[in-house]
C-alpha cells in the first residue's frame, strides 16, 4: 500500500495505491484517523492507483466516513475509483453511499 496526504485549504487529499488488503488496512485506518484527529473532516481519497481492496479496506473507509460526517462537519469522498475497486463498492452497496468523483480535481473542487 502506498499512501500520501496533502492538506489543501478546504480538504485533505489522501492518495492511495497498491494492494489495500487486510494486512495493511489498519495502517490506512490510522492514517485517516491522523487526518480527522487534526480536525480535518473533509477528505478526498484518490483510489486511482489502488490495485486491490477487500472488506478490511471498506471498513476503514466507512469508519472514517462516519467520523467525518458526524455533526455534519465534513465528508469523505472518493475519486478515480478503478473498475475492479468499483465492483467491490457495488457488491456492498457502497457505490450509492460514498460520493464518488471521476477526477481528483472534481472531488477536491466539490468541497
Amino acid at each position, binding site marked *: 500500500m502506498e499512501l500520501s496526504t496533502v492538506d489543501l485549504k478546504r480538504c485533505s487529499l489522501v492518495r492511495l495505491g497498491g*494492494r489495500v*488488503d*487486510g*494486512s495493511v488496512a*489498519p495502517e490506512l485506518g490510522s492514517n485517516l484517523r491522523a487526518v480527522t484527529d487534526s480536525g480535518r473532516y473533509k477528505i478526498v481519497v484518490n483510489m486511482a492507483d489502488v490495485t*486491490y481492496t*477487500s*472488506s*478490511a479496506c*471498506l*471498513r476503514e473507509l*466507512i*469508519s472514517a*466516513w*462516519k467520523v467525518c*460526517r458526524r455533526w455534519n462537519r465534513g465528508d469523505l469522498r472518493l475519486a478515480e475509483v478503478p473498475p*475492479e475497486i468499483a*465492483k*467491490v463498492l457495488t*457488491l*456492498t*452497496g*457502497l457505490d450509492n*453511499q*460514498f460520493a464518488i468523483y471521476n477526477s481528483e480535481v472534481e472531488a477536491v473542487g466539490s468541497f
Partner: protein
Amino acid sequence: MNPFQRQLSLVGTLADLPRIANFIAEACAALGLAPAARFDLQLAVEEACCNVIEHAYEGAGGALKVRIETCDEDVVITIQDRGKPFDPTAIPEPDIDAPLDERPIGGLGLYLMQRLMDEVAFTFSPEGGNTLVMTKHEVLASADPPQATEEGRDGSPAAGNDL
C-alpha cells in the same frame, strides 16, 4: 483427467494475506482462469482467511490450510483452521441498501464471500476443526489454459485442468 490440486499450510497472521493472495493468483494463472473469476476467488479467499485470523484466532497466529482444486468445471476452495468455531446462521446479512450512517462498520466479509462464490459451506467439528468449502461453478469452461499443448487445445476444452 487429473484434477488440479494445490495446498498452502501456514501459521497465519494478517501479514500472511499477501502470501495467500499470491498462492491463489498462481493457481488461477495455472488454471488459465478469466480475470473476473480470478478476482472473485482472490477476494473470497482473502475475506475467509481474514476472518479466520481476526475472529477464529482473535489476531494471534494459528494453523491455516488453504486448498484449491478442480472438480469437473468447478473450482473448489477449502479453508481449514483450529480456531474458535462460530455460528454463521447467527450472523445477520448486512442491509446493503441502508444508508451508510445506519450501517455498522464491518460485517461485509461473509456477505462478499456469498456474493462472489456459488456455494459457501461451513462445518465445525471438535476433531476436524473448522472447515469452509467455497465453490465457484463452471469457471473452467471459459478458462484459457496458458500451458495447454497443441493437441489439448484442439481436443478437449478442459485440457488445462491437469497442469
